[in-house]
């Protein structure tokens, strides 16, 4: 029964195969390259497929690229498949269902990203004029990634008929780049290069750098070529280059001298020098000289011999591009671009710094309220940030829509941490107002307890807090200056809270009372203000803001039980550097630290850790000289 079925299927398959002789047979000749494709070997198969010139080839290439082609183990042929297990086999030429096969007998063809790129390049010629704009964009992406001379003509030909303005502009810009690199006439190329010199995009700079690729060389005389520069390498490098170019004999290394000596020991002596004294490098040289003088080994190369060899040669580098006019234009264009890019990079760095500053500000503003206004150290502030972030995570588990969940999460996080803050103030801190050092320790106890509780509930693995789709991506000014929307959102949030805190403190009754209690609790109490209530509310407010900061930080980074600890020291620094008891001070502190950190990072881009160390060192020294911070309170309010 089963055998009959298989026979029936294979007859149908065979019949279909005969009709699709050409495509399938080309595939079978290249079966190995198609099924296990490699970037290096796949080009032959693609060339043959395209040479076939059949209309179904582009379709096959596309589906191959999309991992939609399967090989049926039974007959070794390639099919598209459809449906569920057992799958319908679809003929690659006719598009008809020609049989069925279970999952176990089908192997999916998975070209890797490199091969997919090669296929994409091959598809360019079919896609440039395709009615589907997405395919046209795919073709342009392929050109941008890996441009070649033979794309120049089809691209130029496709521009006139292009209906979409944006795609047309992109085509024109790409055409310019291709012309600059591969154009026939020198004037055209120079013109294209000059036109490109106003751009700052990575692609445009790439074009210039590709035109300006050069090779190093060394010779007795400067060759007649498009010379990029005459080089003056360091002594050791220069000699190594000569040796590599077979223009000089290699000098012996210390190890080689040692092994020569070891090979020439005669009766415990080398060249008359006792072996036991050879732990001295000078003695080794002397022994070698003795051997050389006796003619046993080749003489030692001296420093002056090597210098003479170097002086007798000229070191240069030569452009791959033979036409000097083109390279000159490219050098000028690149210089122009780099100037612009430098300015743009500074702007980008400044934006990153502002973004970092706003994150520090958000993390620290709650602390500034509790620490600055109330003079209370809250080591558990970081854990309130964490609580806010976990609140966001929990709400995302309940409300799957990211936008709605974030809108819900912000007030809920505020409420949760506000409550936690009030509870902590009532239960612990209230009793310790007279003992600030002990507040520090008690809140630290709360901090380790909270951290561990979070670990017990949520585990140590980081939890996802996903931003809504409209916050994905970045605001791109050009290839250099860009900032992600999530960071912009955090910046906006920081500004919002700055205004809110200022408003509360300066314009509301609560703010007035807070300021009164800050300056003189006794007097405030005698004026009918309840300091207890004010302290409680202030503490709740500071904690609540920490909760909101937690949601924001979780969105752009991660949610773990230890995230609070990452921010607590930084937050204290921010508050202390800025000046206690002043919102503007916190802003100044956050900006200073943000810009400083980015600045140090820029000076030493390969080690971000060093940046943090130096920043803390700077802060320590800064506080020595301005113990009250940037914005210091004056007069009696400064207290003790």
């Amino acid at each position, binding site marked *: 029964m089963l055998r009959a079925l298989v026979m029936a299927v294979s007859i149908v398959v065979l019949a279909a195969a005969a009709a699709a002789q050409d495509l399938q047979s080309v595939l079978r000749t290249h079966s190995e390259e198609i099924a296990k494709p*490699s*970037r*290096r070997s796949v080009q032959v198969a693609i060339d043959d497929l395209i040479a076939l010139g059949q209309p179904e080839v582009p379709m096959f290439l596309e589906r191959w690229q999309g991992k939609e082609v399967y090989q049926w183990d039974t007959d070794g042929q390639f099919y598209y498949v459809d449906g569920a297990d057992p799958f319908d086999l679809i003929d690659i030429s006719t598009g008809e269902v020609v049989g069925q096969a279970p999952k176990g007998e089908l192997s999916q063809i*998975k070209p*890797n*990203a*490199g*091969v*997919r*790129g090669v296929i994409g390049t091959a598809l360019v010629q079919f896609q440039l004029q395709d009615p589907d704009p997405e395919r046209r964009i795919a073709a342009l*992406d392929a050109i941008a*990634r890996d441009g070649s001379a033979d794309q120049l003509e089809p691209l130029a030909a496709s521009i006139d008929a292009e209906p979409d303005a944006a795609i047309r502009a992109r085509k024109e810009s790409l055409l310019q780049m291709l012309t600059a690199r591969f154009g026939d006439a020198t004037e055209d190329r120079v013109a294209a290069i000059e036109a490109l010199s106003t751009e700052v995009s*990575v692609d445009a*700079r*790439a*074009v210039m*750098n*590709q035109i300006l690729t050069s090779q190093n060389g060394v010779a007795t005389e400067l060759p007649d070529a498009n010379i990029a520069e005459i080089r003056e390498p360091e002594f050791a490098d220069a000699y190594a280059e000569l040796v590599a170019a077979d223009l000089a004999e290699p000098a012996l290394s210390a190890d080689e001298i040692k092994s020569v000596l070891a090979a020439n020991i005669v009766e415990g002596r080398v060249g008359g020098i006792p072996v036991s004294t050879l732990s001295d490098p000078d003695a080794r040289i002397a022994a070698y000289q003795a051997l050389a003088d006796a003619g046993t080994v080749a003489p030692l190369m001296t420093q002056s011999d090597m210098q003479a060899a170097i002086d007798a040669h000229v070191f240069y580098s030569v452009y791959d591009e033979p036409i000097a006019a083109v390279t000159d234009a490219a050098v000028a264009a690149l210089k122009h671009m780099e100037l612009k*890019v430098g300015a743009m*990079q500074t702007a980008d*760095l400044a934006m*990153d710094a502002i*973004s*970092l500053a706003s*994150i520090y500000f958000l993390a620290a503003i709650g602390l500034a309220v509790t620490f600055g206004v109330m003079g209370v150290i809250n080591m558990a502030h970081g854990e309130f940030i964490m609580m806010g972030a976990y609140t966001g995570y929990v709400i995302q588990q309940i409300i799957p829509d990211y936008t709605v969940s974030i809108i819900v999460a912000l007030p809920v996080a505020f409420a949760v941490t506000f409550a936690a803050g009030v509870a902590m103030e009532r239960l612990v801190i209230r009793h310790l107002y007279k003992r600030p050092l002990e507040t520090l320790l008690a809140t630290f106890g709360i901090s380790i307890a909270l951290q561990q509780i979070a670990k017990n509930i949520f*585990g*140590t*693995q*980081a*939890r*996802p807090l*996903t931003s809504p789709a409209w916050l*994905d*991506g*970045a605001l*791109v000014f050009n*290839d*250099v200056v*860009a*900032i*992600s*929307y*999530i*960071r912009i959102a955090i910046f906006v949030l920081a500004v919002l809270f700055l205004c809110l805190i200022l408003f509360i403190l300066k314009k509301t009754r609560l703010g007035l009372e807070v300021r009164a209690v800050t300056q003189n609790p006794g007097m405030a109490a005698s004026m009918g203000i309840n300091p207890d209530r004010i302290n409680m509310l202030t503490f709740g407010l500071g904690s609540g803001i920490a909760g909101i900061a937690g949601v924001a*930080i979780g969105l*752009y*980074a*991660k949610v*773990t039980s*230890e995230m609070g600890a*990452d921010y607590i020291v930084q937050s204290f620094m921010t508050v202390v550097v800025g000046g206690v008891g002043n919102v503007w001070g916190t802003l100044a502190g956050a900006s200073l630290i943000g810009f400083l950190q*980015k600045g140090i*990072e*820029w000076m030493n*881009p*390969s*080690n*971000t*850790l060093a940046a*943090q160390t130096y920043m803390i060192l700077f802060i320590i020294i800064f506080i020595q000289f301005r113990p009250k911070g940037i914005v210091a309170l004056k007069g009696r309010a400064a207290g003790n």
Partner: protein
Amino acid sequence: MFKKTLLPALSTAAVIAGASTAFAQDCTIKVGVLHSLSGTMAISETTLKDTMLMLVEGQNAAGGLLGCELEAVVVDPASDWPLFAEKARELISVHEVDVIFGNWTSVSRKSVLPVLEELNGLLFYPVQYEGEESSRNVFYTGAAPNQQAIPAVDYFLEELGVEKFALLGTDYVYPRTTNNILEAYLMDNGIAAEDIFVNYTPFGHSDWATIVSDVVALGADGKQVGVVSTINGDANIGFYKELAAQGVSAEDIPVVAFSVGEEELSGLDTTNLVGHLAAWNYFMSADTEANAEFIAAWHEFIGDDARVTNDPMEAHYIGFNMWVNAVEETGTTDIDTVIAALPGQEFPNLTGGTAVMLPNHHLAKPVLIGEILEDGQFDIISQTTEVPGDAWTDYLPESAVLVSDWVELECGMYNTETESCVQLTSNY
């Protein structure tokens, strides 16, 4: 009160009685499990502790070992490196275990090494590491750099045509050493020094905007840029989020990671990461019968079908089975005998093919490269034949002359130039 205590007592007795009938003799063989169950490493290591308990349970169900029951002795070094040494000493000298399976970080391994060598213990270490080490008392079932990093970079060079490399890592020993090896290897392969960008960030780093922009800017000279990431743990979340935010797709700048597996991806929304790569010796998506069985057994043991399996789990699986086979072959758990019997042991991989224990105490295992899929799994797009693990890399001049061979040369650090053994204990 009486009732309450009696019931568990009875049931325990029943369990022991039921169990003892299965074993030929009334004896136990102790297996030490030295994985952090608290602290920062707990998340990774707890999984391995559970894996070990599962393997021990499975072995007991199959009749134990040499007719004896296996007993897992679990201790918690709490992600505290000095505590690892203390607990290892306790396992060997107080609990008298016959073998230890444990450790994750390199620093914890370095902490344990002197104790193992002093007391002649036996450790199976299951995590990919930086190499440059060989101890008589340790069997390395994770990948050495030439079993993970080098093949991944080869893939970048050969298949993706990458000409410019960004080596991003967390600032600790594994990324440092791996990147050193990779730099030397890339330069041997004709990549100029200025085309290699190296950056180190602290643990848990979250501010990635500038670094990702720097990487994007590397493409300004028209060369294909690729990122080799040895970024560890939590920091990956911010890194991948920033990549997605700046619109860096796998087609533009592919990222291959050595420390990101199924477990790490479960904390991330992977839709924006599709196509980025990871290199391991095992992926959960490997399509073999052995793997399907292993995953099913794991899900049953842990009671949660959502749990993933990962590379170090496979390493423990292979290491445990090799140890069991060595003990059965020699008929003893004596450490020296077992150490001598382990090289040459063979055991089928979960991903197909056979793992072989080499004389240098490393495994020969296949290298897999996977592309991240939307569901947090990996699509295996490249699988090599078995690659023998190399304790001392061939790409750094100082270690190129060193070999490890505990069978013929009886030395873990043998200098082939001077033909002498540098030291018998390991370097720590």
